[in-house]
């Protein structure tokens, strides 16, 4: 009886270790990601829809120095914050890229004169290549946009998984 109990415990422990080992082997790698870019955005308002096209340069962790580009549309009937969504791409070193979708929780909030906007939102990673190949996740982005000059800054922060 004692022998059977010991055997049972050993099997359970071995099984547990195997499960743990498998889990470790399959566990995803977490990558803390931060990137900052600055550039120029062009906007065109038609009725209550604003088309946004933005390009900028900067750098980030893992992705290195490079650029960001994106296109989005926003609803200008919403004040003081204009919700917007679209797609974009960060391009860095060693063929590393992140293609992302800006979700519709994203918004730009203007000041009293509609000149300076704060930007905040979420970017869902659709595809990543190079050093970040197969990385997934959602990044929070924050930034500013100045309407008269078109200047914008944006910072992406989050944890990617691959």
């Amino acid at each position: 009886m004692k022998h059977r109990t010991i055997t049972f415990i050993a099997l359970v422990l071995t099984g547990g270790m195997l499960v743990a080992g498998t889990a470790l082997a399959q566990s995803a790698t977490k990558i803390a990601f931060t990137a900052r870019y600055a550039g120029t955005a062009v906007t065109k308002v038609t009725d209550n829809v604003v088309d946004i096209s933005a390009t900028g340069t900067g750098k980030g962790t893992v992705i290195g120095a490079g650029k960001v580009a994106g296109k989005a549309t926003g609803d200008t009937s919403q004040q003081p914050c204009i919700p917007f969504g679209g797609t974009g791409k960060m391009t860095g070193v060693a063929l590393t890229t992140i293609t992302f979708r800006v979700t519709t929780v994203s918004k730009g909030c203007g000041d009293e004169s509609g000149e300076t906007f704060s930007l905040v939102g979420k970017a869902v990673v659709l595809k990543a290549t190079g050093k970040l190949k197969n990385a997934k996740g959602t990044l929070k982005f924050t930034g500013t946009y100045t309407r008269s000059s078109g200047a914008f800054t944006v910072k992406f922060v989050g944890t990617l998984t691959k």
Partner: protein
Amino acid sequence: MRTLLILLTGVVAAVALPGSAAADTPFPSPKVQQAFVAGQTVTPTGAIITQVAPGGTVVFRAYAIDGKTHKTVTAKDVKYFYVTIPNEPNVKLRYGARLPGASSRMPWVGAWTVPATYRSGTVEFKILLKLQSGRRAQFVQMPVASSQLTVTKTTTTSFTAPITANPAVSADGKLDVGLYVDSVNGTRPAGATPRPVGCTQTNVFKRGEQFVLRAWGTAMENADVLSTENVDTATFTIPGVATPVTLNWGAHGATSNRVWFWSNFWNIPTDFPLGDTTLRVSFKLDSGKVGNFDYVITIIP
């Protein structure tokens, strides 16, 4: 197991993320170090005012948080806590939530009777604090001229109904988030006549007016001012209104003196119940920390 590992890795990653600094100019500064102080200007009956006439009385009320212990500051903690006013003697603040003009959240008060000869215009006062530990802090109003304390012979904008029935929840003990909250009258009321001056500080509103809440704050754990970079959600909740109002982070004030803080408006329904009502201002940070501030307003006909 895998879920646990992911969670653990996520926690480590979150802790390892570098502290962020706001990219723009938040009010009052990117960091609030040593101690946090917030102050308001009110009548002895607790109505927030912007305008005061020569000969009138304004009560400064404040609260503070020790930047090291994160505890709210009480009488035993203070070396000095006073208001400095241009060309006037200092106004010492006394501690007592039941003193005229005080609230549970802002129990430090001091009254200033404006001399009859005091010049008209904005009063650039400062509230200065030094703790027994040596840590210091100061408070100044947000540099939006219409909302700063103003001496004027025509106090046509500030309503002064008493607000004493429903003091805000006490903030005794430790706080993870230091919050400053005030409100101003919006310039585009949907159901009432606009006041002579827009964007003046007030917590007394007529039905149909536009209530605008303004806030700024500090994450006490790292002294970072609250911005979109460290805030997950920011809202204020109105009793009887189903959906909380989202506070937006944005630029305000004159181009030459622009500052960033949190704000949004609420159009007060023309049938909203009269009397005191308590709004709850709530910030949830990306770190998971939460800060609340109960803010009392009075609705008058």
